[in-house]
Structures are given as structure tokens and as C-alpha cells.
């Protein structure tokens, strides 16, 4: 109370003298350590974001999840190879038939298979655990008294979640490229529209598709983050987030629910296939990205509102 009035008088000598002397004088005057507030620095501010990334990717759990995602394309590649070796009545999902012609199509096949279940599951684990996991171990209180700042911590967690989406997608893509190159011929790629592009252009398309797939998962990161602020148990938050992904996809499958389906965050996930046409068909992709942005805005705000006003008793 009266402390606030006393502050200016304490700062006054610092203004008059060179800073170093003032600090020393202040230390002598008061038997105290630490001379008032230290300034915030840009490097200090970003340190938490970098630390969060390092922490995410140093966990055995994260590495294991990425490992599982990387095994998926290998399995698909091997199965397709064996299948076509036996008998070649080559029917199957849209992309699979193409894989035997060109190994690069394994990328799209693997992404199409990983996107409904495996990718969101791993993202759900990472995003769901983000705040709740820290609360469960008690490290949350130490981060907050450091003080990390609640908004900054939430932003760092969200950034790390997005980075994980990208890493997860890249794990699938890279494993698929490697497997595809090892088991099948590479070369000119025939697109879904029938046009042919060369391998370099096709690789660029693969990178573009990977980026779009990673961004498709960003809405889920925001949802997971919000759920994570609701509970003190990491497992509960992970299970809820993954459960939500499955529920939403089931809802998306009922034709009777077509009125709400455009608003489900999984609805346009498969639109990345439109980028494999010549010319690229962007409508659904942009709709998907817009929907993800909407989810980030809504659930990001909800997470922020909840987290910044929450009593941390864990």
C-alpha cells in the first residue's frame, strides 16, 4: 500500500547516478540482494518457447510416437509389395493402386491412412498432456512462479503442439519416401487428374501436402490444449482429446447429420487429395484451413480464459 508511494524515492538516486554505482549504493543502503526488477529481454522471452520444443522432443514418449508413425508407411509399403507380387488384380483405395507404379504415391497413401486415426491420436496425446501433465507432476506451479506467465506458457505449449504436428507429418512423409524409393520405381508422377509431372515437382507437391496435413491438425491442438486446462490428470486429458477425435469422425459419417458436418474439424481433412490435381483445386483445402483457424480462435480463447483465471492448487 504505502510501499507503492515509496518506490519513486528509491528509484530517484538511480536516475541521478550511473546505473552501476546506483545499484551498488542501493545494495549498501539496504542490506538486500537483487536490485529491483530486472528487465525482460527478447532472448529471455523466447527461451521458454525453445525450452518447450526441446522438452517435447526429448521425451521418450514423443520419440516413440514418431517412431510408430514412421513404421506405418513401411508396413503399407511392404503389404502392397507382397500383395502385388502374389496376384495383380490391383484394386484398392484410391492411392494404393498408384503406389506400385510410383513409390512417391506411398506418401499420399500413408498420409491418407494416418490422418483419420494415427496422426490425431499422437497429437491428442501431446496436446492433451501439455498443461494437465505439468499440473499432475506439480511442475506447473514452479513454471508459474518462475514466472513463466500464463499466457506465455500457453503460447509456448501451443507452439510446441504445432511443431509436433509438423514433426508427426514429416515422420510419415519421410518414412514413406524412403520406403517408396526402396520398394517401388520412382519417376514421373501421374496425378489424379491424369496429368503427368516430373519427380522434382511431385516432391514439391508432397511437401505442400505435408504442410497442409500438419495444419489440418492445428485445430485439434487448440482443442487438446483447452481440455488440458480443465483437468489435473494428463491421462484424462489425453483420453478425452483422442475420444473426441473418434466421436467427431463417427458423427461425420452419418448422412443425417450433414447440417453440422461442415463445422466438424475433421470434415475436410481428406481435402489434401485436391492438391494432387492439375491445376490444384484449393477450395476445400482453404475451407479446411479456415475451419482450423476458427477452432484455434475458439478453443484457444477458451483455453486462455480458463487458464489465466484458474486457481493452481496442484
Amino acid at each position, binding site marked *: 500500500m504505502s510501499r507503492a508511494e515509496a518506490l519513486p524515492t528509491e528509484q530517484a538516486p538511480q536516475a541521478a547516478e550511473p546505473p552501476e554505482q546506483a545499484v551498488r549504493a542501493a545494495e549498501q543502503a539496504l542490506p538486500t540482494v537483487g536490485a529491483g526488477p530486472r528487465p525482460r529481454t527478447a532472448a529471455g522471452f523466447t527461451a*521458454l518457447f525453445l525450452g518447450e520444443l526441446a522438452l517435447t522432443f526429448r521425451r521418450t514418449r514423443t520419440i516413440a510416437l514418431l517412431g510408430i508413425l514412421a513404421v506405418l508407411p513401411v508396413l503399407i509399403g511392404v503389404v502392397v509389395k507382397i500383395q502385388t507380387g502374389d496376384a495383380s488384380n490391383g484394386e484398392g483405395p484410391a492411392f494404393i493402386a498408384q503406389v506400385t507404379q510410383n513409390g512417391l504415391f506411398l506418401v499420399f497413401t500413408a498420409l491418407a491412412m494416418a490422418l483419420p486415426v494415427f496422426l490425431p491420436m499422437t497429437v491428442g496425446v501431446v496436446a492433451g498432456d501439455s498443461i494437465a501433465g505439468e499440473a499432475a*507432476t506439480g511442475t506447473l506451479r514452479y513454471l508459474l512462479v518462475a*514466472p513463466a506467465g500464463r499466457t506465455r506458457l500457453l503460447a509456448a505449449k501451443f507452439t510446441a503442439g504445432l511443431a509436433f504436428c509438423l514433426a508427426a507429418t514429416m515422420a510419415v512423409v519421410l518414412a514413406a519416401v524412403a520406403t517408396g524409393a526402396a520398394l517401388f520405381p520412382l519417376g514421373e508422377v501421374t496425378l489424379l487428374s491424369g496429368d503427368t509431372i516430373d519427380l522434382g515437382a511431385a516432391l514439391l507437391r508432397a511437401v505442400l501436402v505435408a504442410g497442409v496435413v500438419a495444419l489440418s491438425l492445428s485445430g485439434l491442438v487448440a482443442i487438446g490444449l483447452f481440455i488440458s486446462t480443465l483437468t489435473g490428470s494428463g491421462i484424462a486429458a489425453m483420453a478425452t482429446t483422442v475420444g473426441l477425435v473418434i466421436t467427431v469422425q463417427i458423427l461425420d459419417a452419418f448422412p443425417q447429420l450433414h447440417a453440422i458436418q461442415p463445422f466438424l474439424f475433421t470434415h475436410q481433412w481428406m481435402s489434401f487429395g485436391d492438391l494432387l490435381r492439375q491445376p490444384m483445386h484449393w477450395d476445400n483445402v482453404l475451407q479446411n484451413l479456415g475451419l482450423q483457424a476458427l477452432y484455434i480462435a475458439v478453443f484457444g480463447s477458451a483455453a486462455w480464459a480458463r487458464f489465466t483465471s484458474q486457481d493452481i492448487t496442484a
Partner: protein
Amino acid sequence: MTTAPDTEQVRGRAADGGPASATAPDDVIRTSGLTKRFRSGQLAVDRLDLTVPRGSVFGFLGPNGSGKTTTIRMLMGLIAPSSGLATVLGAPMPQSVGTVLPRVGALIEGPALYGFLSGRDNLVRFDAADPTSDPRTRARRVAEALDRVGLTAAAGKKARAYSLGMKQRLGLASALLQPRELLVLDEPTNGLDPQGMREIRTLVREVAAEGTTVFLSSHLLDEIEQVCTHAAVMSRGRLVVQGTVAELAGRAQGRLVVRTPDVAKAGEVLSEHRVADLRIGEARLDGLAVVADEETLPGLCAALVAAGVRVHGFGVERGTLEDAFVALTGEGFDVAG
């Protein structure tokens, strides 16, 4: 000394109305009417008026469940008060968390660590959370903090392999990553062996000697008595008393102790001389003597000798904080609130 002047030495609940307000700018922590009622309806902290002077080692005492940790969480901005004000380093909490907390080191309800990180990396992580800490000096400060708590040798080990004592030390190290104006330690010796407790207390004294104000919560009276200059006692969410440790211990009246084989006869003599609350033990008896002047004690001793009591020992034992606590709350100390 009689009871009445003793009680007046101690500043009671209405502390900030008294002489404390004159020293207000130097109070590191001040709360007025601080109250926390949880959504469950439980009243954890009830109209708390606490004043922690700068430079003190302040013992925050109370049984488990008396509201100490809830108070600390409010002071650290982790939970919002239901009503009342909390001021730390001159700024209101939880609004000023960002400017106040970089100058405060805290150990709250035991250490919490990332088990999959080494001790050193845990400190790096917590240090990186503070936006005012300089990344260029981080490695050096982490090494110094580890050295200070004696963990240098175990710094590379995964924290999950640490013993409770080592975790506690690492928690302390993270509170000491920067020069701090205030160190808040919630039960810092919990779960430590006697040697570990002694080391932590030595560290607390060292830190205090450097000018850091230490706010130490404990349910161990002798701990407070050994390291603290000031103390406050909580019971069931309310502040019972606060003052210097000497004042508080002074509240407990000294007891006259007589060592003699003739306890029965000595008891008769002492009760004749208005020594109250006599407790007769084996070759020892004690009671509350009303010490009116310089002559009271010698007079008592002479009376005992005159009555033929073989006096082996005669003296007044100073009251302990525990006596004071029992006198104040009328309850045993380890009763949960």
C-alpha cells in the same frame, strides 16, 4: 513478570494498526483481510493480516491444514484471494506476478521435477521460464546453484533417480538461480534426515545473512525456533499471533524447576509461597512462580533450604515456542485443523 505485560509485547491480529505501519515500506509481505474460500465452501484462510519485515527470517507456523500453503499460493499468485489484499515486494498480487516473482525464489509444497531430465536440465528449464533471466549467464548460474546445494556431482543424473532429499535440494537450487529479495520456503525440511535438515537450515541462515528475506513455513516448532527471527502462528485458517520469536517464546512463562530428593516437602513449601500449577516428578518438581522482584527467587530458595529440603538444583527454565503455542491455541500442535 506477570502475564499481562507479557501479552502486550506481542503484536496481535490487529498488527497493521500498530507500530508496524511506520515501517511499512520495508515490509516484504503485507496482507490485509486476506481470505480464501474454495468453491467447495471450505474457508482455508480467514481474514489474514500478515506483516513480514525486510531482512527477517520469518517463520510461518501452524499444524497441517491450517492454511499455510493456501496463503503461500495466494502470495505467489497461483490462486486468487476471495477477498482482501496481498502485497509482495510492494506490489499487489496476483496482478504484479510478472514484475515481482523474478525477485522471489520459491519452494512450494515440496519439489516437483521432470523425472526424465537431469538435475541440471531441470534447472535450465525453470530458469528459461523466467523472461527476465539472461540466457547467456544461464549455464553459470545453474552451476552455481547446484554447487550451493551440494548437487554438482549428481547434476547429470536423471531427476527420477534422485532421493527425496536430493529433490528437495534441487528445488532449493531452482529458488536460488538468481539473487533474490525474498525466498519463500514451504516446509523445506519435509522428508529430510537430520543431517539434511541441518544443511538446509545452514543454507537458510547463509541466504538470510546475504540480506534475502526468508519466509519459512513449517509445522516444526524447533525448526522455527532455531532459524527464525520472526514468526506467525496460524490455526484453522486464522492468524493467532505474530511477532519476534523472542517475544513469542517470552509469552510462555518460565517455569521454576527444583531438583531434590525431597519432592513432597519441597512441594509443601512451594505451594505455601504461592507457586502455582505444581508438577511433581521423580526427584524434580516444577511450577509457575510469580516473580515479583529480585528477591523472590532467592527467598524461595532460602525457604526451601530452611525447611530442610536438600536442594540439588534450582532455577527457571525459559519457555519454548511450543509452550507459547499451546498457551495460545489451547491445543496440541500436531492436531490437523
